[in-house]
Each structure stands twice: as structure tokens, then as C-alpha cells.
């Protein structure tokens, strides 16, 4: 493939590539670094790209492999700090009865990256189970399991928000009743 054609195609995938990086890292700076590494690797290994195949999928594969490779190194460097940190973060529940996008993002941040990745590949990018399994290098059953667990965790968060609204409504009603000497309907 002509390098200029390849460059043009690479550029056309940049924003989606960065969005995929965000889905893995949930952090702007980390996503930018990951995209930069991916672009450099793709560019210097362009001869390995098979013309006529899907460049976006190829870039995604480079990106996710770079991400997991960096992550393994980071885990080795700070062996046990990340897990407890992540678990200790709590999401402030929404009080308007539905999960706002910012709060959905926060809930998404708390999922294990493997689940977030599968949710993105299947829920957003419409990959089949088989395609996702190939990209992630795992069995189809593992993909289904990660998808279900990710969706369950998010649904649980959304249920909690619905319950939270109920509690808030009850508290508000109670306050009104108390303030009006128990005469409120």
C-alpha cells in the first residue's frame, strides 16, 4: 500500500481510534499517549498491514495489545496499589432518577477494562461475538460472560439510581408532611 494512501486512511481512523483508547483508559492523557504509540507502531510496521483488509481493525488490535502490554508493565511496577484504589472509588448516585451521561461514564470507569472493552466492541462497534473473541484473543464464551457481567454491573448502578430517586422522593415527602404538621396529602 502506498504510504500516502495509508497515511490518509490512518488519519481517517484517528478519532475513532482515540475513542477506543478512551474506552480502555478512561483518561484523556493516557488515551492520547496510547494513540500516539499506536500510530507510531502502525506507521513503522506498515509493511505488515495487508492491503484490502480492515485497517481500523488492524489499528484497534495494535492499540489494545499496546494497552495491555503497558498495563502489565504498570501492574508489575505498582503491584497492589491500583486494585484497592479502584475499589475504593465510589460513584455519587444521580438524584434525577435516571443515569446522566456523566454518571454513566463514572459507572463505566469502575468496570474492569476487559468488560468495558467487550461492551464497546459489541454494544458500540457492533462486533459479533466471534469477531470480539478474535480481537481479544479469548473464547466466545468469555466474551459473552464479560458482556453479561459488564451489563449487569451497569444495570445494577442504574437500578440503584432508580432506588435512590425513590428514597429521595420519600424523604422529600416526609419533609413536607413534617413541615405541614402531617396534613400533606
Amino acid at each position, binding site marked *: 500500500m502506498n504510504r500516502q494512501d495509508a497515511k490518509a486512511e490512518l488519519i481517517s481512523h484517528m478519532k475513532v481510534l482515540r475513542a477506543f483508547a478512551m474506552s480502555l483508559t478512561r483518561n484523556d492523557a493516557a488515551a*492520547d499517549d496510547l494513540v500516539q504509540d499506536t500510530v507510531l507502531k502502525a*506507521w*513503522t510496521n506498515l509493511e*505488515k498491514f495487508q492491503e484490502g483488509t480492515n485497517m481500523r481493525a488492524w489499528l484497534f488490535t495494535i492499540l489494545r495489545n*499496546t494497552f495491555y502490554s503497558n498495563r502489565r508493565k504498570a501492574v508489575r511496577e505498582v503491584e497492589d496499589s491500583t486494585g484497592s484504589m479502584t475499589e475504593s472509588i465510589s460513584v455519587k448516585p444521580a438524584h434525577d432518577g435516571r443515569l446522566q451521561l456523566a454518571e454513566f461514564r463514572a459507572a463505566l470507569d469502575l468496570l474492569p477494562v476487559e468488560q468495558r472493552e467487550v461492551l464497546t466492541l459489541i454494544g*458500540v462497534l457492533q462486533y459479533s461475538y466471534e469477531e470480539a473473541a478474535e480481537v481479544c484473543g479469548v473464547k466466545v464464551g468469555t466474551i459473552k460472560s464479560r458482556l453479561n457481567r459488564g451489563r449487569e454491573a451497569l*444495570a445494577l448502578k442504574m437500578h440503584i439510581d432508580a432506588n435512590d430517586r425513590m428514597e429521595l422522593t420519600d424523604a422529600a415527602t416526609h419533609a413536607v408532611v413534617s413541615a405541614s404538621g402531617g396534613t400533606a396529602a
Partner: protein
Amino acid sequence: MPHRPQKQSWDSLIDENLKKVFEEDANADLPPHLLELLDRLDKIQVTDGADGSAPLPEAEG
């Protein structure tokens, strides 16, 4: 008793939110240093895999 969506509608709602999050990220402007990187790609020397650059990592789960 409030109406609670069934699993399928939760899944649809979740996917809808996932798409919104992804679209927001995909519509964001690229930061200047990534644009600069694209501008200078042509200047990066590539010597057919013999440049010492890191090989592509193997697929992993």
C-alpha cells in the same frame, strides 16, 4: 410499585448510553500533539522492519 425495565430494555438503554459516550469521545477534537504527529509521519524513517522499532505485540486477552 414503579415499573422496572426488563433485562432487554436495560441492555438497550446501556448500549444507547455506551454509544453516546463513544460518540462524544469520537467527536472530540484531536489534541495538537497528535495532529503534529500526523504531520511529521512522513519524516519518520522506516527501513522495512529493520529499524529497531518494537514489533507488533501478539494478540492477548
